[in-house]
């Protein structure tokens, strides 16, 4: 029985076990078979799967990266089981790939070197809710929507809302963000403590076991070291999160603009006016056109802002009138707003369906989202240059963006079977990332580095910072078992230790 189907492309030719593919297959296969029975003794029979369908499900996420299945998938039920399983993997030097909901966008769960996927979905308790302290601790199987459903009677919510109904611990691992980051922040600002299992099975509490002060000055910020580490430093088994009060009132608004510049200028001025805007989303003319066609709407085909205000019912009127005035001063038109839920949903439907509207432009094609983020003042320039690039290279790429953060996505729709188009898109995304870096920005505002942006990370941070990161990685995971090949370039697995 061969558990491997694909030969892994290894960057370094000096790896000891790669001489001759058949020898490598049998060495790896025997090791895996030995450990499967050890795994079963930890989790029980139902907690281990080598079925090909299960492995394939755990070798892909929602990105365009192809499926790279692990050799085994394990389903631990507690942090003690995670630790015991990690110890086994550590002993046999098997790669460990944590898996939450598989909704990532950067290939973070691809098992490049095979190994063991730790599916954490059976750990799905909301462990500890402290209403008066506005904090809650969750296990990795709890998704953001299920947490908010759990909290619905308390008047509290967790506002970070990436597109998918993702695992909250997974969101911590990728430093996820959402449409209301401009008001509530991203995962970086909202994780108070993490329980992490390291590659050797050690259970670490990054801020101390059970601690949840709203602020702290105690020692190195280990919590935020793991936030955004994309499974390369440890397996997150609990996250303590900051909660917020559900807003008393919500108002949504839409406004059209004659140019990208006027839309962004309005955004900056709204923020400067101190309006505590909760969401401010930008859709370009191509995107609006796609939405009109997809939903039978009739928005003016021109750059558009979708806005949302949260607050007390008394403050709504003031927020809306200040904003309306600013948009008018910048040439905005057709300002429409609504407070009741049904009309708000209708107003925002265009923005909610953007991904599907983009895909509907070219049925049968795949969609890929870029993710650069720049200082807000540079947004008009980068969007204008990017649109020109899209047009001159004949790429379908409607733009939707969290303009309050300077973050925008080109929802590129491409035919994966057209090598020329694939190449054009690839070059385009590299140019876009470099354009953002040249403007003091980042190649990834929300989605993470994963597989596809490792080289860009080096350009963005510089070789020194990468060396520091490698040092931290070597300190926490000397055998390089944690999600190898993500975030940092694939390195030689040290089998001599």
């Amino acid at each position, binding site marked *: 029985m061969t558990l491997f189907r694909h030969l892994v492309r290894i960057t370094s030719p000096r790896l000891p076990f790669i001489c001759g593919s058949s020898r490598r297959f049998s060495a790896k296969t025997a090791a895996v078979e030995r450990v499967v029975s050890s795994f079963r003794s930890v989790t029980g029979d139902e907690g281990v799967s080598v079925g090909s369908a299960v492995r394939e499900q755990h070798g892909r996420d929602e990105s365009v990266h192809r499926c790279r299945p692990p050799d085994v998938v394990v389903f631990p039920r507690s942090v003690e089981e995670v630790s015991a399983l990690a110890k086994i993997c550590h002993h046999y030097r098997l790669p460990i790939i944590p898996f939450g909901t598989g909704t990532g966008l950067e290939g973070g769960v691809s098992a490049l070197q095979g190994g063991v996927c730790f599916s954490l979905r059976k750990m799905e308790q909301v462990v500890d809710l402290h209403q008066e302290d506005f904090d809650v601790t969750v296990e990795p199987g709890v998704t953001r929507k299920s947490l908010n459903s759990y909290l619905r009677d308390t008047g509290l919510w967790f506002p970070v809302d990436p597109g998918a109904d993702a695992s909250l611990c997974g969101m911590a691992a990728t430093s996820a963000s959402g449409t209301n980051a401009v008001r509530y922040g991203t995962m970086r600002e909202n994780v108070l403590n993490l329980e992490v299992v390291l590659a050797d099975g050690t259970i670490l509490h990054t801020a101390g076991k059970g601690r949840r002060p709203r602020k702290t000055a105690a020692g190195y910020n280990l919590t935020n070291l793991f936030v955004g580490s994309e499974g390369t430093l440890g397996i997150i088994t609990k996250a303590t999160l900051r909660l917020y009060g*559900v807003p008393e009132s919500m108002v949504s608004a839409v406004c059209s603009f004659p140019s990208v510049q006027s839309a962004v200028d309005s955004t900056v001025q709204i923020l400067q006016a101190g309006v505590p805007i909760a969401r401010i989303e930008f859709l370009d003319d191509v995107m609006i056109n796609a939405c009109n066609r997809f939903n039978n709407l009739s928005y003016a085909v021109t750059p558009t802002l979708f806005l949302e205000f949260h607050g*007390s019912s008394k403050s709504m009127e003031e927020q809306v009138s200040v904003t309306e005035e600013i948009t008018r001063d910048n040439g905005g038109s057709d300002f429409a707003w609504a407070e009741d839920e049904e009309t708000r949903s209708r107003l925002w439907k265009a923005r909610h369906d953007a991904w599907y509207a983009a895909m509907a432009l070219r049925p049968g094609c795949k969609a890929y989202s870029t993710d650069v983020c720049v200082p807000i003042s540079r947004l008009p320039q980068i969007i204008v240059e990017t649109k020109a690039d899209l047009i001159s290279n004949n790429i379908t790429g409607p733009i939707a963006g969290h303009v309050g953060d300077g973050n925008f996505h080109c929802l590129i729709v491409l035919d994966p079977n057209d090598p020329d188009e694939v190449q054009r898109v690839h070059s385009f995304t590299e140019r876009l990332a470099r354009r953002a870096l040249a403007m003091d920005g980042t190649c990834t505002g929300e989605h993470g580095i994963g597989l596809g942006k490792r080289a860009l990370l080096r350009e963005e941070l510089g070789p020194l910072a990468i060396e520091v990161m490698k040092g931290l990685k070597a300190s926490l995971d000397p055998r390089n078992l944690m999600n190898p090949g993500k975030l940092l370039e694939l390195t030689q697995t040290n089998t001599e230790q």
Partner: protein
Amino acid sequence: MSARVLVGVKRVIDYAVKIRVKPDHTGVVTDGVKHSMNPFCEIAVEEAVKLKEKKLIKEVVAVSCGPQQVQETIRTALAMGADRGIHVEVSGKDYETLGPLQVSKILAALAKKEEASLIILGKQAIDDDCNQTGQMTAALLDWPQGTFASELAFEADKLKVVREIDGGLETIKIKLPAVVTADLRLNTPRYATLPNIMKAKKKKIAMVKPADLGVDVSSRLEVLKVDEPPTRQAGVKVETVEDLVGKLKEAGRV
């Protein structure tokens, strides 16, 4: 309109919880398990509050039957906008055997006492799925009923109810006073906000016993056994059509 609306709210195991049967098979595990307001009761409360916001009715009274804990459920209704609550105290064995017949007697008695002109209930509870309380209450009061409502509107002195039925939608007009039971698409219940939860703490919840209403809560039903559904058996793959026919014959299907 000086109408008063009675809304029944039931405390049930939260819909997201994985239900487990007690080892003695007398029921399901409820200790330490998250409970919340029955989702259809949330929709009923939302509808009543919406009617009050449109100034079509005057007062919303939330009612729940059970032990001390149901006061949490009544407080949630108050946080959503109900004006006051009534806690009908039923505990111990009486609570374990409380069913639609007893609850409908209680609601009928309360409706008369409170001079309510409209009762809105959820169409069924997600724990017993009985779908009987609304209908029984209407019968006891000899009031018209609009069940499985997906739309509710006042038209002069009547209530127009659009009902979800197997064949589609049925629209009826019923006279007040009436009983309405809420179906899924009637509305989207609002989230309770912190300020409203704070305000709700000041609203009144009156306590009353079934005996005060002249209702006997003893049950005429006895639960004999509670079991989980049988675990699904793994399927069998066959290689040929002959194998398939053979297996079907073995199972007595052909």
